[in-house]
């Protein structure tokens, strides 16, 4: 099935944060929404752009990249934002 929101999230995070590693999980099926919904997502972003930045700033960068999605269809976004070093020592 085509997943336009998931694809758009992937594209925007890739373009704006140049991640070493990116995971985008649609977790909408775990919530009370119609089948095939794209409303609840979890992302894992590993980027050297996060180096030296507190969590709040990293999350703001992800939120900023996805502001269009967050103000329309995406109701919930769980974020893990790691540096390559943190990802290397704990890849979860």
């Amino acid at each position, binding site marked *: 099935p085509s997943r336009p929101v998931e694809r758009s999230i992937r594209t925007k995070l890739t373009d704006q944060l140049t991640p070493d590693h990116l995971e985008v999980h649609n977790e909408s099926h775990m919530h009370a929404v119609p089948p095939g919904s794209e409303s609840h997502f979890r992302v894992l972003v590993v980027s050297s752009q996060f180096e030296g930045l507190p*969590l*709040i700033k990293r*999350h703001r960068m992800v*939120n900023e990249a996805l502001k269009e999605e967050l*103000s329309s269809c995406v109701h*919930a976004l769980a974020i893990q934002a790691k540096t390559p070093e943190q990802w290397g020592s704990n890849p979860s």
Partner: protein
Amino acid sequence: LCAAADVQKALGDIVQKDKVVVFMKGTPAQPMCGFSNAVVQILRMHGVDDYASYNVLEDSEFREGVKAFSNWPTIPQVYFSGEFVGGCDILLQMHQNGDLVEELKKLGISSSLLE
């Protein structure tokens, strides 16, 4: 003066009024969303019971106002001493890496995890 500006002014007062302020869906006794519930449970684990919580589901104008005030697109939102801390993911990670105990200490709150 429009209502939206009034909401922003009220929010400025609200986050200063109490050491720990949570904007959430539902109430601590009855959270209406898993992410809001996670914040309630984390605070409970640290023995933080005495905090101000505001239910954004009661008023859509308030809910949108909170998001604009913090420049943060999702609920829940946590404030310590008037400073925006973050949402559920950040609080969870601060809990896991020990930062939460330190931040509570700065507020003069001794985490019950230290007992």
